[in-house]
């Protein structure tokens, strides 16, 4: 039963990893940008959440839409200024700029907020509430809620990319930038919209991480970016639903590893990542459904 419990917890945490991963996957799919600052931006979103709650005293769930909007605005502005300037100059420059951004954010957060970790919604009853299945399996409502949220976010993204006006523009620009430009779509604006959406998902991921455990300045690179990348690779590059598959596989691998020995948790996840990288480099879901 302990193993069944571990697998169930792993599947549920996979939803959180899918939230980490879908922004990374979206930016890569649309702009061919690997955003090395991805994890640190999620941590920034978490700290913005801490700030919003401290100022307005609103419940943590209400703070999610506020932070999503704020991060989307930051994403659009960052894309139109710094990231666009980097993309124009090539992939190497983009990597250098996002890596620089990552180091600046991480160290900046440490200067302003110290290295201490902070939780979101500490003391709220739903954070710790859970229900039991049988005698040995306990499922936290929060984990289940985040998993459902991840599915809703992915579903929403897929619908948006498939049917909305900007969704179609994003796919058109991702397919052929020049042709879309010739048809009258300003690809820079479309990139900005895509970045805003990606940053919105990053905001949700950051707040969820803050509710599940805690956030700290080094979390962005130590955990979020690397786990997001593992989930993207396991699931398949550029596939939206692949990130959910990848997240779940990563989560289950970590849970099984932790069940064998608590210090094997992260290593077990990396082992599966490497296995997929070597055996099936196109990922488990080879054909993407969107982006």
């Amino acid at each position, binding site marked *: 039963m302990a193993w069944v419990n571990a697998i169930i917890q792993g599947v549920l945490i996979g939803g959180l990893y899918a939230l980490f991963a879908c922004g990374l996957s979206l930016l890569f799919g649309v702009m061919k940008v*690997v955003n*090395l600052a991805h994890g640190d931006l999620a941590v920034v979103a978490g700290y913005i959440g801490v700030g919003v709650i401290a100022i307005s005293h609103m419940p943590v769930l209400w703070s999610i839409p506020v932070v999503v909007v704020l991060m989307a605005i930051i994403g659009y502005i960052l894309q139109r200024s710094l990231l666009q300037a980097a993309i124009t100059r090539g992939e190497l*420059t983009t990597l*250098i700029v996002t890596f620089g951004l990552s*180091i*600046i954010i991480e160290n900046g957060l440490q200067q302003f907020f110290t290295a201490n970790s902070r939780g979101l919604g500490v003391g709220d009853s739903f954070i710790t509430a859970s229900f039991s299945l049988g005698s040995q399996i306990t499922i936290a409502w929060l984990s289940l809620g985040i998993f459902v949220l991840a599915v809703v976010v992915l579903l929403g993204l897929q619908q948006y990319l498939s049917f909305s006006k900007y969704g179609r523009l994003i796919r058109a620009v991702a397919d052929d930038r020049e042709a879309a430009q010739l048809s009258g779509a300003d690809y820079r604006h479309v990139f900005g919209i895509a970045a805003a959406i990606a940053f919105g998902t990053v905001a949700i991921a950051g707040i969820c991480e803050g509710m599940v455990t805690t956030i700290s300045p080094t979390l962005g*690179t130590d955990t979020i970016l690397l786990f997001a*990348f593992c989930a993207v690779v396991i699931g398949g590059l550029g596939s939206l639903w692949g990130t959910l598959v990848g997240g779940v596989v990563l989560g289950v691998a970590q849970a099984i590893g932790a069940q064998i020995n608590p*210090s094997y948790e*992260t290593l077990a996840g990396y082992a599966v990542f490497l296995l997929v990288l070597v055996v099936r480099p196109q990922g488990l879901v080879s054909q993407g459904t969107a982006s």
Partner: protein
Amino acid sequence: MTTLRPEDQLVKVTRSRRSTLWTSIGALVVVVVLFLFPYAIGSGTLGILVQGLIILTLATMWNLLAGYAGLVSVGQQAFLGLGAYFVLIPAMHGITPWAGLFIATAGAAVCALPLWWLVARLRLGYFAIATWVLASMVMLIVEQISSIGGGTGEPLPGLTGMDPAVLTADTYWAALVVAVLAIGTVYSLLRSRTGLVLTAIRDDERAARSSGVRVGRARLLVFIVAAAGCGAAGGVLAIEQLGVTPGTSGGVFSVQWTAEMAFAVIIGGLGTIEGPIIGTIVFMVLQQTLQSYNAWYLIVLGIVAIIIAIFARRGLWGTLDERFNIRLFPVGYHLWAPGERRGRKRVPADAVPTDAA
């Protein structure tokens, strides 16, 4: 190189437009002066110079990776850490840490082989994060081994009882030898056939591949050399700190090491041998000026690196070279147009025969 036709006899090919005699003598004088430093300056300054030489070695290796082979690795801290442990482990069994430096260099190179196999097919961004994951994994594995200190680290035995001033001087010489060898190795590698292969790949990978250039083998060689260099630097670090601390914050496996080497290279000039030297000097000046403000030096460096990456892509040295055409370590070729002389303005490109370029 094909035989020149009679009418081409006027064309001369050299490594540089300027004579490298004076710069070679200059470089030699600088190295000799650096070797004599311990007789002239105090331990405190020497200690700072040791840190500078470690960064210089790392930056030279990162420049080889990113600037010449297009391999943007964010996982070089793995080899730095492995190098530190390859000095620590033999020292725990009675081998002097100075000899351990050789083990660190060779050991890191050997470890690079399986790691390369895992990331070889990835490009740019995915290569960058994958190397980062590998570095994180290497750290987690090393931390599992409790006999070498597990997650807390271990002091370095074998050097206790030495006079601190002598130890600092010896560490400095070791760091200097490692840095000079690193620059020398990269310089001669780039002047060899491999350098030509790397230039061909950088200019047009597909064309190089179809001309029979073994792209994978050249990249593998660069990856191994860079790992060896970072391993040697890690060995020096273990001796300098008299111990090894793992962990991602402040330890040998911290990504900050890669940030420091990358920023130094980008500021100095990516893809030039001189760039890392200039970048390391800028780095050390900034770090020493801002040292009382915690990690602010890294934030300032990051901002400067981003600005340079966007507005002056060739870095400080590249910009100087563009304007004054100076190269201390020429790795390319200069084709002399008929009648062109030293000191005269460069002949327009279309006047130069292109078949030998």
